[in-house]
């Protein structure tokens, strides 16, 4: 399963992947243990002439044991998950760049505030499906929807946030590598849901500065 995870270019992606791998190993071990035990019992206790089944209604100690053990593992996973969840969804670190995403059937309208860093002013710039950000900077996304629920999904950032009409939902990320990456929509939004696709362009500091200069040169 693990080799199929896309590359991670996000500062918190490592935390998410760590949890994923931990759960993978725990579930893989439990899976093997249960399936092997099942098959072993089926072979060992298959009906054989002369052998009668063992008459027992259960074992309280075992019940307690196999109640406590899974509970401990699961509580442990919940506790571990908490800090990553808070980091990604509940807290936003000091922001370098803010961008608005207005999702609609079937495009991402990306709104840049421009040099005045304020939205709703003349120097705002709207680009369809193109999110330009500098590398190694905290980017805050203000997510909106013009119509139905969409979901802004950037696999390589381990970022996913549903957008909701009537509401502003904030998210953040810090990209660690330059490049161009896809932004699919991850919530059924109508007949154009498939193919609703944006591109994230993570630029080096220099490259980003040139892009800004070029875009707002007028």
């Amino acid at each position, binding site marked *: *399963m693990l080799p*199929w*995870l*896309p590359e991670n270019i996000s500062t918190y992606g490592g*935390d*998410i992947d760590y949890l*994923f791998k931990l*759960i993978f190993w725990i*579930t893989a071990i439990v*899976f093997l243990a*249960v399936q092997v*035990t*099942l098959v072993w*019992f089926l072979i060992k*206790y*298959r*009906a054989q002439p002369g052998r009668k*089944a*063992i*008459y*027992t*209604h*259960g*074992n309280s100690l*075992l*019940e307690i044991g*196999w*109640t406590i053990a899974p*509970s401990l593992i*699961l509580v442990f*996973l*919940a506790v571990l*998950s*908490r800090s990553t*969840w808070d980091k990604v*969804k509940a807290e936003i670190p000091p922001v370098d760049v803010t961008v608005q995403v207005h999702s609609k059937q079937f495009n991402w309208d990306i709104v840049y505030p421009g040099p005045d860093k304020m939205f709703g002013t003349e120097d705002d710039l709207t680009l369809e499906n193109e999110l330009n950000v500098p590398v190694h900077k905290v980017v805050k996304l203000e997510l909106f929807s013009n*119509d*139905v*629920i969409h*979901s802004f*999904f950037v*696999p390589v950032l381990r*970022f*996913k946030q549903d*957008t*909701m*009409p*009537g509401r502003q939902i904030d998210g953040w990320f810090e990209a660690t590598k330059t490049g161009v*990456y896809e932004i*699919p*929509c*991850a*919530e*059924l*939004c*109508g*007949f154009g*849901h*498939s193919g609703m*696709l944006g591109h994230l362009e993570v630029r080096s500091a220099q490259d980003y500065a040139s892009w800004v200069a070029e875009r707002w040169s007028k």
Partner: protein
Amino acid sequence: MSEAAVAHGHEEHHHGGFVSTYVFSMDHKMIGKQFLLLSLFMMIIGGILALMVRWQLAYPETAVPGMAWVPEPYLYDGIIPPETYNMLFTMHATIMVFFVIIPILVGAFGNFLIPLMIGARDMAFPLLNMLSFWIAAFAGVLMLSSVFVEGGAAAGGWTAYAPLSANPVYTGVGLGQDMWIVAIVVLGISSLMGSINYITTIINLRAPGMTMFRLPLVIWSLFITAILLLLALPELTAAVVMLLFDRRFGTSFFLPEGGGEPILWQHLFWFFGHPEVYILVLPGMGVASEIISVFSRKPIFGYRAMAMAMIAIAFLGWVVWGHHMFQSGMNPTLGMAFMTTTMVIAVPSAIKTFNWLGTLWGGSITFKPPMLYALAFVSMFVIGGLSGIYMAATPVDIFIHDTYFIVGHIHYVVFGGSVFAIFAAISYWFPKMYGKMMNETLSKIHFFGTLIFFNITFFPMHIIGVGGHMRRIYNPTQYEFLLPLQHWNVIMTIGAIGLGLFQIVFAINFFWSMWFGEDAPQNPWNANTLEWEAPTPPPHGNFLEIPTVYRGPYEYSVPGEKEDWLPQAQPVAATAH
């Protein structure tokens, strides 16, 4: 007394004629069989819809074989357009969840088994029972008819998220989505009638000596499921009626432009939706317990723990719904709350799995088809349950929400779990239902083919989900990052076709055996539970004489007994001192 009962039964039978025996029967056994046949028909339709989805995913925008005759705008020379694609997976899921799994496990087996296994002559309310079937059938007609209206069938997913489903302009689907809503409401009425019947019957009509803790676990599971349905369905009904009002009567429950709140729909839907998935699996767990005990010739390991675990699942099922909404934009603190409850609900399912293993331990196991299916239930359900842990961890869910990982999980618990339990139940109780044995060889061929192709079809979903492959997309090749995964889509489609083909074996076995199968003995499995005390097949009124229950249902291989089984209704031997 007994002769009079039999004579009365015969009289009733002859009085009725075809219509009251086979059409408007008030006999729970006939109603159960009606539910079974209706649902098997719906399963074929649901399966074909899935095959079409799989075709499109493997070979996007190519003509589906054999579908060139379907007129526009549904298909274009056999090619599925995006609008139709959204209808396909919406109706596939809707039909499978509402018109296959619930009607078979709850409608068919709940009806057939409850009176027989508790020692009653019929349900508490036979007329209500008859109505519950015909209302369900009517709901099915409504749901299928929705395909043929202008704008086509519902296309917002079986989850029908607002605002997509709340305003026809967003999907282009008009009457079809309204009919979906009405069909769900009508079906809900049928289920509520059934629940009232089952709960009343189990509480009031148990035979002498049948205490609650001597009830077979399948009856426990149906009892608990009936209570869940009773509580969950009215809430769903309210939610979909609100949706209908938004669509047609100018309200704004879920439409932000009128002051409404889209996320409210999600809360309302999933508050029903989560108990619903336990409704789908609990009867399967009950069936597995029955069959594993019988074919291990051992008491079920931890009977009370098993019953308590089902009750725990039912209770906890009400407080986990937010795990479907982790990424919805709801307050992140709720994410923590629901993660905790979701992790907790894994525990009772784990307990049940260990108890099934404990039942097998030290047993004397025979591998008849019911046992094969029941073992597959346990094995596949474990996979489905374990994959659930990934989603329960909210940070991991950020990535896998709305990917095929979820679709894989769903199918391992609902197909690997519930559907295998359905095959187990059918092959186990077929002799009692139809007085014939199913062909064992055909059953085994069906079993192995289904198990193998099921895994080929659904296991790779976890793989592509981890790769980020989204759900409900029409053409994966539109995404560069998904191109390396596309061969898995082809593999899964081939698996799905194989899976579909093997179901033909089941259909042949089922129908051929019904008429031409070997005559079934009264108790082909040497099982202890009360349904085997009744003649095969049972007449109206079920038992010549109402049995008295002397012990629990799983007294197998009791030391000192000559046989390795000891029926619930067998009197305690007088001890000679």
